[in-house]
């Protein structure tokens, strides 16, 4: 044993500290330091401050007194919270199913050797690339009233205009469809990468065993992309539950709060109702729900 580190009788932490001070630890620490500082300032500090706010009854302009868990209790007793939770769940579920199926279908098509495949890949990425403000405002213009583009097409085929943003059910439908439209490119790209990493010999073996195309897909493709699919669904859930742009820019959470999800509710509490405590409580309950979901899905992934 090296006498430099052999401090018989010296505390273990001192040895550890000396090891950490060695150049092979210092260099990575120095390189990581800016990112850590940024994360602390931009993520950790606001999070801690937000948690503190959730236990107070003030506003952003005038800090309030500590009220313990009463914001959380009040929130759980508020019908608006349960309505927002329900809409968030429906929004997330529909978006995941919709953009997964669409993304997988397009990824399978992109694997084929079809003319113009490269151009299609770029065009199909556009919904994801275009800034949300631009795309959602454009969608709003296309569905806003009876003179909007969609209704002009509907009436051209003899139908009656649909007031998409004035009817609660249609507004929810439009929000979900726009979100699927904005989300599928990421799903498609990720699944395409996963499909391309599948060992071709598995398909050859399946073909030798006489498997049909559907059997190859179900017994080879699906198991091979299962893990990445779980991760993608997890990410999409988080992004959908946290989506403020789509319901707000389209209909400001309306009509009649039909498209008010948890994030819009938190925003309304904080800024429109001047109650940062309730807004922060809403945000943290959303966080706890998402953390539980992450835990559950990661366990599922480990089991597979």
């Amino acid at each position, binding site marked *: 044993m090296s006498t430099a580190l052999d401090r018989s009788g010296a505390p273990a932490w001192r040895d550890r500290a000396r090891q950490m001070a060695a150049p092979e630890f210092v260099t990575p620490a120095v390189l990581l330091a800016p990112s850590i500082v940024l994360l602390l300032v931009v993520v950790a500090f606001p999070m801690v401050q937000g948690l503190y706010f959730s236990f107070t009854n003030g*506003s*952003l*302009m*005038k800090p309030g007194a500590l009220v313990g868990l009463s914001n959380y209790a009040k929130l759980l007793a508020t*019908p608006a919270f349960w309505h927002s939770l329900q809409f968030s769940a429906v929004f997330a579920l529909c978006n995941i199913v919709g953009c997964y199926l669409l993304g997988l279908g397009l990824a399978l098509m992109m694997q084929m050797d079809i003319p113009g495949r490269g151009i299609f890949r770029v065009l199909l990425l556009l919904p994801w690339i275009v800034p949300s403000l631009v795309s959602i405002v454009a969608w709003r213009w296309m569905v*806003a*009233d*009876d003179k909007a583009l969609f209704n002009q097409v509907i009436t051209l085929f003899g139908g009656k205009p649909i*007031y*998409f*943003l*004035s*009817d*609660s059910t249609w*507004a929810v439908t439009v929000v979900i469809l726009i979100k699927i439209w904005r989300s599928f490119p990421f799903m498609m790209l990720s699944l395409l990468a996963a499909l391309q990493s599948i060992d071709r010999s598995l398909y050859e073996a399946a073909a030798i065993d006489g498997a049909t195309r559907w059997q190859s897909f179900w017994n080879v493709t699906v198991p091979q992309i299962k893990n990445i699919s779980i991760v993608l669904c997890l990410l999409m859930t988080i992004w959908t539950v946290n989506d403020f742009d789509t319901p707000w820019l389209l*209909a*400001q*959470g*309306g*009509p*009649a*709060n039909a498209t008010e999800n948890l994030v819009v509710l938190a*925003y*309304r509490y904080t*800024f*429109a*109702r*001047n*109650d940062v405590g309730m807004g922060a409580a809403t945000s943290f309950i959303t966080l706890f729900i998402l953390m539980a979901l992450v835990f559950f899905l990661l366990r599922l992934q480990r089991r597979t």
Partner: protein
Amino acid sequence: MSKTTAKRARHAWLLATAAATMALSLTPASAQSVTLDFWDMMWGGAEYPVAAQALVDRYNAEHPDVKVVYRSVPWTNWYETFVTAIASGSAPDLSTGAGFQAVQLYDQGAILPIDDLVAGMDQNDFVPGALDALKYDGHYVGLPWAVDVRVLFYRKDVLEAAGVAVPTTWQDMRDAAKALTKDDHYGLVSSGDPGGMHWILTSAINNGGGLFDDAGKAAITGERSMEALQFLADFAADGTVNPASAGYVNDDARGAFFRGEAGFLLNGPLLPDQAGDVKDQIGIVPPLKGPHGDVGTVYWVNNVMVYNQTEHPKETMEFLAWWSDNALTLWTDGHSGNLPARKSIASNPYFQDNANVKYIMDTYLPIAKTMAATVGGTFPALNEIDGDGFLMSLMQAIWQGQPIDGPAATAQAHLEEILAN
């Protein structure tokens, strides 16, 4: 380099730095100007901020020691705009804003009272009630600059073509709307944003009700207010309100009205002057009589407020006084959609020669009440009620044709929560 040379170089550097510092500190005072940030809401069409900027430029030219920086602020999410600015320490020196904004922000410790400024002005030059509407906690928290009142307008050509008389009562209005609804044209058009929500306030006040009872408690589900909500719900049930209204913003509703797709529209007092070619086709419905014979409408005293965060209160107050005295071009050039709060400005031929404006000032203003109708006065919660979305949600539910009991109860509970806080 020898020690002596290094010492001399250091001395020379120190001397140069000191000289530069002294030179900067001796800069003549006239070259140091005060900069004021003035945020102004969109009080009219595209020409309004142009006219307001020109007025600011005139002030800057007349006062070279002060530079006012003008910023036009859209109404969308107006409440959040100011809350975040104040909370982040980036509030302007002064701003215009919503009718009760100054009261609530004063309560949050963000507003500088302007008592001295008001004391130095001719208080009789303000329209009756305007200054009192901004007196809270013994202080003037804002300076009135305009009065915004809700007026019911109609399309003369549309009513004439349908052979419909101008209504005088609620029942007349309902019948007229039915007669006008056909071939994708509707009796009335509205919106789901604050512009649409004003139907609730106007109708409730028209019927002798309002958001509050005499004791200041929430009264959305009170008898007179529920009658007003039912009056609006009847339009939806009859199919006489444009079905797109719940999803419309105010500009959409105005556009539909200007295109002649609806017979009636509730809007600001200077709507005809903003209507372009169809100005002469727009008439004013005399204040409707409710089922109990009441008349009334809602109005706001819009004002300019000074923020505590200002570093130049003296210059800010001076600019505010000048702005108030010289605001006429905001109407003549900017076509502001409100009426002036100063009688001296209202006496200008621009207003007196405008038959519509004169009619509104003589007929609508005397019967107008603020959102605090029935209880009176002003208090901070009014701003939260004005900026919160719960009345918009109620309006959207009504225009969608939902039965009013559920949405009204939800709005009542929400209002009670705001008042309790």
